[in-house]
């Protein structure tokens, strides 16, 4: 059985506690394969920002230093929405495909006057499965941490560069 992740999704798929390796199907689609069998099965689809980790500050500082004031380390993603969705289904003899859409940012949230948020799991016609918490949830903590990181990063850069210039001028003048 295959799970398809569309539009370069960055979700992780877990089956029985193990992360499934993803395979590229084409430019925009990746797939994960679940072992065949009988009875009920459950997969977990998780998306989490790096900044939601409890050691985020330590890692951020470490890579700020390694990346020479953070200039050469990859930026943290602006998209901090989290997903922790379970899909329960009964395995059948024939293959069963579950499709996972990367939902655009503006269609994830509850907005007055707009249609309800879109589920990240889209099943094919005729498929039956139970989905638990299939909606993206804004991770405010990760979003705040991203802003904090940017602020402290720039402050530290300005202070460090000013200090380097001061020391360079001081030692040049005084010999």
């Amino acid at each position, binding site marked *: 059985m295959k799970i398809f992740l569309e539009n370069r999704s960055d979700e*992780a798929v877990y089956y029985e*506690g193990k*992360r499934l390796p*993803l395979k590229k199907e084409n430019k925009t689609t990746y797939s994960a394969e679940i072992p065949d069998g009988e009875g009920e099965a459950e997969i977990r689809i998780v998306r989490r920002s790096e900044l939601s980790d409890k050691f985020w500050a330590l*890692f951020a500082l470490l*890579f700020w230093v*390694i990346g*020479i004031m953070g200039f050469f*380390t990859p930026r943290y993603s602006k998209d901090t929405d989290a997903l922790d969705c379970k899909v329960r289904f009964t395995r059948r003899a024939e293959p069963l495909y579950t499709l996972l859409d990367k939902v655009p940012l503006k269609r994830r949230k509850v907005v007055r006057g707009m249609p309800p948020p879109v589920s990240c799991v889209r099943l094919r016609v005729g498929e039956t499965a139970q989905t638990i918490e299939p909606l993206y949830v804004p991770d405010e903590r990760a979003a705040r941490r991203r802003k904090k990181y940017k602020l402290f990063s720039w402050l530290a850069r300005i202070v460090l560069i000013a200090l380097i210039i001061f020391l360079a001028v001081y030692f040049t003048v005084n010999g």
Partner: protein
Amino acid sequence: MENEMRLYYFSNRLGGTFLRLSWIFVIAAFVPALAVLALWASAVLTGLYVLILFAMTVVTLGMLLLNEDFRALYDVGGGIETISSIVQSVNRFYIGAMPVFLALGLSMCVTSIVLAALRKEPKGKVSRIVGSSIAAAMLILAAIIFYGYAMNVQV
């Protein structure tokens, strides 16, 4: 799952950082080659400059040569000597620095390639491996140019 995600993010970020840093070493490794190019360019431009002066002299039937200031313009040795001394200084520095740049740059490229190859996530995997491989190849090329030629340039 928490530990696995943490390890994934850490290795992904480390690989990305190392790839970017390795390109700094690539640029640094090409400095001696660029210095020699600058020397050649200055020689060519000096030749063009003298040619223009000669053309002006011919056009004025040599009358300009009566002017002492114009005759002084023909003295171009100082400029080339300055650039040559800069190239020699750069070469002396790089005799010690090139092995360091090569070692650090290549180790970062290899680390980035290994981390990308071990990823279960295919997104960005190929581009990172290709990018790191190109950076490693450029580093080796810069080292070959330096040890094979740039280091021995004498003017």
